[in-house]
């Protein structure tokens, strides 16, 4: 047994001639969270999540009939109907939490069962809340398919075909005998490798020994239920408990369109999306358990019934970034600040890092007002390696591992190469390049070690692909950031960590007010700055739009993102008309 189930109390629950293996963790007086596993799994699929929840809740797991160490019904046919599974659930709930309803969490077939328990009449009052991961209600699914088949529009047909193609294994499992034979034979040995390769799961002793019987018996889940429910779906499958839906966006078995209009069945539905594949209880246990804990704790506090939370962050990215930990450097102004605000608006936890303590604190304060459940300010110079290491350690201890890192801090420097001193070179590379390197090193390592994905955004610039005679140092530093991002993206792809380089272009931020101009007197320096500020002010491209692009880029995992039209234009030119770009590079400072 792995660490996840250490110290678990085991008991056997007898129901309908079957013995179910039930495990309990944590204090039994706390709210009960019941974790339901899927196919082909056993309750150990939840070990990582259970481990993270056991301090706060009474966590209960059981092997469903025929799986893991629970016994199988005889005969198998007809022994796995949802009605019988509901009996099992009621028996377990009665045994572990006789007085209070339980909070259900289901993954895959566990979620299919969960939907049944959360919508059936006879379980009313036994379910306090339900978190559904990768498993629709069969009734909803049937009606979803029916609706798309009976009133086809091009979009509906596409959705229908897409889901039908993803369901190949369901048809396969209806073949008699053959699936069992395969699972007992060649497929069994390869299964862990298949999971590791295709689903990118850590190979840490899961699946367990019982895999062969799990898979063989579990096939009856499909054979006993799918056809029956598809033919005669219940039309009254409304949830009698609040429901939270966690959708992995990379699920190869279930289309995320399946959950369109789910609010009809579960009013006040809380949605989250996760950039991951099917087995999120194993690949993303931190985030999954955080969402479960938050949802359960909120129901326990009695905050909002099924009608949901009044102050829940809305907006297009709330599902993807709600509760995630975001760290932004250079967050006291400009693009950094706007990015912090945009994430805050989506409900993310925000850490604003800047050299300027006042500005960082202000960003954090306003982020909290915008809806960030947690916002902190840290005063750090990104070019200081030791300070960055310390910051990483502090953040990890106080807030956990950063999910999204935005290396945005940067300074401007304009002037001819021959006028630029070595000191000035050092300074700009220290902030613009080394700042990004330090950020990626310390936080990227934490992300990689955690092994649960993440995203790094580096702010490069349109100057990264546009050479120019008066921005030599700046363009060099930003070109380096661009290449660093591209290389890092390749390196971290295998770990589920995305890397994005943002190339904003001319954006109205404070970078012009602090930029240095080389080889001019202080007076001229001031004049030039003023002119630059006015020029950027006239262009007036707001940093909020860049922030929007950052969120979109993280959501879609884009590699290089030019933002302003001129940035797009320059990128195109750098690909197709580099000579023209070189001619542009000769134009002197337009101030």
């Amino acid at each position, binding site marked *: 047994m792995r660490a996840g189930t250490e110290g678990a109390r085991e008991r056997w629950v007898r129901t309908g001639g079957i013995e179910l293996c039930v495990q309990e963790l944590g204090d039994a007086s706390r709210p009960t969270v019941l974790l339901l596993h899927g196919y082909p799994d056993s309750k150990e699929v939840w070990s990582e999540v259970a481990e993270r929840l056991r301090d706060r809740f009474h966590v209960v797991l059981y092997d469903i009939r025929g799986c893991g160490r629970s016994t199988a019904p005889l005969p198998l046919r007809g022994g796995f109907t949802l009605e019988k599974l509901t009996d099992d659930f009621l028996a377990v709930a009665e045994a572990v939490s006789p007085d209070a309803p339980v909070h259900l969490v289901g993954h895959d077939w566990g979620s299919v069962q969960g939907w049944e328990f959360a919508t059936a009449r006879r379980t009313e009052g036994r379910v306090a809340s339900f978190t559904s991961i990768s498993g629709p209600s069969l009734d909803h699914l049937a009606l979803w398919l029916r609706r798309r088949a009976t009133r086809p529009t091009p979009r509906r047909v596409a959705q229908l075909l897409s889901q039908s193609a993803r369901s190949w294994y369901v048809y396969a499992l209806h073949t008699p005998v053959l699936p069992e034979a395969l699972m007992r034979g060649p497929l069994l040995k390869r299964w862990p490798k298949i999971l590791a390769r295709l689903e990118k799961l850590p190979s840490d002793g899961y699946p367990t020994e019982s895999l062969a019987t799990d898979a063989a018996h579990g096939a009856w889940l499909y054979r006993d239920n799918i056809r029956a429910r598809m033919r005669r779906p219940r039309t009254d499958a409304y949830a009698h408990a609040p429901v939270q839906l966690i959708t992995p966006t990379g699920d190869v078995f279930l289309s995320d369109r399946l959950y369109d209009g789910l609010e009809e069945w579960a009013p006040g539905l809380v949605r989250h999306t996760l950039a991951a594949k099917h087995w999120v209880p194993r690949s993303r246990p931190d985030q999954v358990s955080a969402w479960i804990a938050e949802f359960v704790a909120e129901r326990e506090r009695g905050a909002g019934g099924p009608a949901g939370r009044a102050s829940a962050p809305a907006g297009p990215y709330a599902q993807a970034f709600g509760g995630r930990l975001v760290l932004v450097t250079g967050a006291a102004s400009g693009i950094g600040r706007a990015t912090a605000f945009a994430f805050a608006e989506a409900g993310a936890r925000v850490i604003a890092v800047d050299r300027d303590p006042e500005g960082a604190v202000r960003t954090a304060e*306003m982020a909290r*007002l915008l809806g960030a459940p947690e916002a902190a300010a840290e005063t750090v110079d990104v070019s200081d390696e030791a300070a960055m290491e310390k910051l990483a350690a502090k953040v990890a201890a106080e807030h956990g591992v950063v999910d999204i890192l935005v290396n945005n801090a940067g300074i401007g420097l304009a002037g001819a190469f021959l006028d630029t001193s070595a000191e000035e070179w050092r300074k700009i590379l220290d902030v613009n390049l080394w700042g990004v390197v330090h950020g990626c090193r310390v936080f990227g390592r934490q992300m990689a070690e955690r092994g649960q994905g993440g995203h790094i955004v580096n702010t490069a610039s349109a100057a990264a692909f546009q050479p120019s005679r008066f921005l030599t140092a700046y363009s060099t530093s930003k070109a380096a950031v661009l290449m660093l991002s591209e290389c890092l993206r390749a390196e971290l792809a295998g770990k589920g960590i995305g890397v994005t380089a943002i190339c904003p272009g001319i954006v109205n931020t404070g970078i012009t007010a602090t930029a240095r101009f080389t080889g001019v007197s202080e007076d001229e320096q001031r004049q030039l700055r003023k002119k630059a*500020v*006015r020029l950027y*002010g006239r262009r007036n491209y707001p940093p909020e739009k860049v922030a929007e692009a950052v969120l979109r880029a993280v959501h879609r995992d884009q590699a290089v993102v030019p933002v302003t039209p001129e940035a797009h234009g320059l990128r195109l030119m750098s690909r197709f008309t580099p000579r023209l770009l070189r001619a542009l590079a000769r134009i002197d400072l337009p101030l």
Partner: protein
Amino acid sequence: MASAVARELTADLRGFKETQRLAYDCAEEVAAQLRPGVTEREAARMQRAWLRERGVRDWFHLPFAWFGDRTAFVGFRVPLQFFPTDRRLEPGMPFILDMAPVHRGFTADIGYAGCLGPHPLHELLMADLREHRELILREVRERRPLREIYEDVERLMVRQGHANRHRAYPFGVIAHKVGRIRERRWSPQVFGFGTQALRGLASDALRGHREGWSPLWSPHRFSDHPPAPGLWAVEPHLGFRGVGAKFEELLVVTDSRDPEESAFWLDDDLPHVRRRQEERAA
């Protein structure tokens, strides 16, 4: 500002002050009547009716009302979008009432920001506006070029984390001059602006053009001059992600050498000033 209150007001200033008071009374009364479901058009009509009842016949501009994210001018591209729409007020929505009545020949131009129910972000914006009121007065007294004051205000807004939303006004002005207007029996409006007032502004612009100043306080080169004596309707407007707040009131600029006398707010007994004093006292 005790000295400003004690100052013997000329008859003219008293007239302007009375009109401004009248306009703020109107704003407070109308704001108190705003309920969920009221549209911007209705709010504008309420202001108009209230002021007409009290003898207002001419306008610098007709009353405006903005609700919700329209207070921050989200997505405004053409000036027509300033006009009241059928947007309905909802609980927790910020709103702004902006009106410029002419009463017995005296013009006022005021802005009143409020919120239907508590809204922490809106309160923050209102608190931040206080700094702008102080900054503007201080720098006008220093006789700094208007364009630079404009940039300082913008810098402060950016430091506070807000966006400059008065940039959306025609010519991006933070303020414009107002003056006495001759009362005519017939004074039509063009696009919401009173023709008499526009005439006054045009003649100021002409005179200013000869003397090297402009009645519009903007970020552009034509505002690169020290404050010109007269009455300025100053309207800094903050926006923060769909929430906007502004105040607008008259600033008196004179050619006196005494800094206190050279510029002062016409009236310090206004709702947004009182609110700040109460906050400070608390």
